[in-house]
């Protein structure tokens, strides 16, 4: 196969045209997605067109980048595995969007299938309204279809995505937890060079089921990470998610969570630690579509260098969703005069018997706290770093699994070392 250079919306469409007969699954959703993508383009890349959902993030750099497809994988790239955290857990590994059985260790307690073998698009992600979902639906070649049976506790599972220079991968993952099932999923994304990672992940949490979903985004500094999660939570179901954005040049992690059954719970916590010229956008939409559900969200931004951090969070409460309890907190710490934060927490409420609140703060390190440490002989640099770590530790508290939390803390340490270097 010859490697072809591709660029912009036309490049992605050309890739689709070239591949369409070989892509797995029903071709109709792909054709519709291609139409939608052709109409919508990449947000921010078409001049003169502005979309409210993409007010603070432009994908023009993605449109301007060139990708090469397919990328030949050198043998023995199992050295990538050296970068995996030392966790005793089954893992499913994708390299440039393709499942790699020789690098994976399949779990015993759940059903796994490849999207390449059994293409299922799911029914939650909307290609007609989300350009990135359209792009993914059009080009998805592989992904993980995971299903945890009734009442089974599947324990911890790693979903790993590694990418290499010039790759553009659009994995499609589907996770289904049947009634009373449990799973702790740790998603890791990293790689080398300039590439695009555009996963779409659909999650269905059945009645009384619980999914812990922790995502560590530690892509290469020149990479694009654009991920979309759609989750639907059943009665008394629980979706507990935490996203840590450390890497990438342009990052958007978007999550749409729908509380569909009575007494469901959704946590959408996260933290972004950015430096250099990084741009990361943490966007969430929580839909309360059933009574007595709870949603909680704390997202923290630490912004150094010339980085830009974006938080957009919307809580929608439908008329039927009485007794909703929604809470949202967004805090940003600006460490540099060139950093920027943009925050848009939204409440959209159609039910009267609800308790919804949100808060947002933006500022620098507290002068009193800094003075306290300095007056005890701690040098300025060290005092500042202590305070930032404390600010972040607060966010990481939301991750209760100690082993998983250890992985995140380790990654944060790595970020500090890179900043110091």
């Amino acid at each position, binding site marked *: 196969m010859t490697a072809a250079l591709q660029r912009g919306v036309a490049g992605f469409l050309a890739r689709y045209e070239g591949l369409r007969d070989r892509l797995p699954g029903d071709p109709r959703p792909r054709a519709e997605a291609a139409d939608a993508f052709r109409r919508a383009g990449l947000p921010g890349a078409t001049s003169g067109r502005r979309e*409210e959902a993409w007010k603070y993030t432009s994908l023009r750099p993605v449109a301007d980048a060139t990708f090469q497809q397919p990328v030949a994988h050198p043998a023995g790239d199992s050295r990538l595995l050296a970068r995996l955290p030392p966790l005793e857990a089954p893992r499913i590994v994708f390299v440039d969007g393709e499942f790699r059985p020789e690098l994976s260790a399949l779990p015993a307690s759940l059903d796994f299938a490849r999207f390449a073998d059994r293409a299922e698009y799911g029914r939650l992600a909307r290609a007609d309204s989300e350009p990135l979902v359209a792009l993914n639906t059009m080009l998805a070649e592989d992904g993980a279809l995971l299903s945890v049976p009734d009442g089974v506790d599947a324990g911890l599972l790693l979903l790993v995505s590694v990418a290499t220079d010039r790759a553009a991968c659009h994995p499609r993952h589907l996770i289904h937890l049947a009634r009373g099932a449990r799973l702790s999923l740790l998603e890791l994304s990293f790689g080398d060079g300039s590439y695009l990672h555009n996963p779409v992940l659909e999650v269905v949490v059945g009645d009384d089921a619980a999914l812990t979903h922790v995502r560590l985004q530690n892509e290469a500094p020149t990479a694009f990470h654009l991920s979309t999660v759609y989750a639907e939570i059943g009665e008394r179901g629980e979706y507990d998610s935490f996203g840590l954005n450390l890497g990438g040049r342009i990052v958007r992690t978007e999550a749409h969570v729908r509380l569909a059954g009575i007494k469901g719970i959704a946590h959408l916590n996260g933290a972004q630690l950015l430096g250099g010229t990084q741009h990361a956008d943490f966007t969430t939409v929580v839909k309360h579509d059933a009574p007595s559900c709870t949603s909680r969200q704390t997202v923290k931004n630490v912004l150094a260098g010339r980085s830009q951090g974006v938080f957009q969070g919307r809580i929608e409460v439908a*008329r039927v969703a*009485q007794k909703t309890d929604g809470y949202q907190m967004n805090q*940003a710490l*600006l*460490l*540099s*005069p*060139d*950093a*920027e*934060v*943009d*925050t*848009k*927490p*939204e*409440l*959209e*409420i*159609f*039910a*009267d*018997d*609800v*308790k*919804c*609140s*949100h*808060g*947002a*703060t*933006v*500022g*620098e390190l507290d002068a009193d706290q800094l003075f306290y440490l300095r007056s005890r002989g701690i040098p300025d640099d060290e005092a500042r770093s202590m305070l930032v770590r404390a600010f972040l530790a607060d966010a990481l508290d939301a991750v209760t699994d100690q082993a998983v939390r250890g992985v995140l803390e380790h990654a944060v340490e790595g970020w500090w070392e890179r900043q110091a270097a």
Partner: protein
Amino acid sequence: MSAATQTLDTVQSVTQSGYKWGWETEIEMDLAPKGLNEDIIRLISSRKEEPAWLLEWRLKAFAGWQQMTEPHWARVEHAPIDYQDLHYYAAPKRKPGPKSLDEVDPELLRTYEKLGIPLKERAILAGVDPASIEGGSQVAVDAVFDSVSVATTFRETLKKAGVIFCPISEAVRDHPELVQQYLGTVVPTSDNFFAALNSAVFTDGSFVYVPKGVRCPMELSTYFRINARSTGQFERTLIIADAGAYVSYLEGCTAPMRDENQLHAAVVELVTHDDAQIKYSTVQNWYPGDAEGRGGIYNFVTKRGACRGARSKISWTQVETGSAITWKYPSCVLHGDDSVGEFYSVAVTNNRQQADTGTKMVHIGKRTKSTIVSKGISAGRSNNTYRGLVRVLPQAAGARNHTQCDSLLIGDCCGAHTVPYIESRNPTAKVEHEATTSKIADDQMFYCRQRGLTEEDAVNLIVNGFCKEVLKELPMEFAVEAQKLLAVSLEGSVG
């Protein structure tokens, strides 16, 4: 109006209790033909005897407007507006500026009576010697009856202080240098669709200039009225407080009941120089439409203040209870170091009303401060949105903002939305935002009912408490009226 009322339906129209201020005054109108084109603009300009530069400015705005499309980002829905189906000029046939009571149209006096303008002010309007009513708090009224100001009072007292307070068309004639210097500098003609429309066709409004170091000796107030059938009103207000000056401006509105939707696209520009202060208060009570949302005013207003000088301050206070649709974001651009912007708002929506309102605070100067307090109350089938922006530019070291927006829902068919935007580009800036949404708690109701209050009185009491932080910012004259308005607006929303 819907005759069928379900016992459980919490929606009751304000009109079912009768819109208190709904009537129409029969005064002969001088109407320009319907439609909007350059000729109409030339007609307006010539009727107003305007200088050439203003006509050119209008035509430029009109050319810009034709290139623009109506904005649709606000959470409001309405039938398309046919801009060619409106009269853009309506003037009472009387000559402006009555000299005595006899010259004032008795119909107009009765209008003021129904409006509830206090007797004292009616007397002023009717030409009673101001000396005889001294001692009380003085309020100057520049009454805008449809498009042409027909009575201006207290002119002399203000003149002594050096304050210019007159209809803007008069200011164009008598103080062209001031108008030309400031008009459109805060809200440029190209600012937005409705501001451009206003710039092209504005027919009247108020002009205030408070010279250096002068504290305006009285509260200034204008009663805006929309009166003739299917005329839009395009008010233009320009208030300038020179260095060290202070002025408090009050604006209140009521309108007659009618079927056709009426468009109102006003522009208000405020400018403060060093150490100057403007306090702008609004009570807006235009016809909100009937229980099914028919009729009612479309209120698409652009209000913006520029704190140009150091240590200057602009404070917006608004109580919004009327209009079918309110689309309004009184804003402050804080250029001057240590300047202060404030926004206090109560927005009440009932039946099918829609309000999308909030503020923008743009921090440019060092140590600039802004405070936003917004209280939204939704009842019936209404939708109430707070939309606000706090932007801190890189040079705004030490900027500070605190925002609090609370929503109260009455009934389960309404919506309350909060859309704040926070953009900070300076690490020394501190921005805080908090928002809550709740309903009237059962225990609060129980407590009041148990002490013998009717359900309606209990709701009024609780709502007034909820809005207290904002109401206390209003000048005395308005605070009382505002509390009454809240009660009237929420009539029939419980039970």
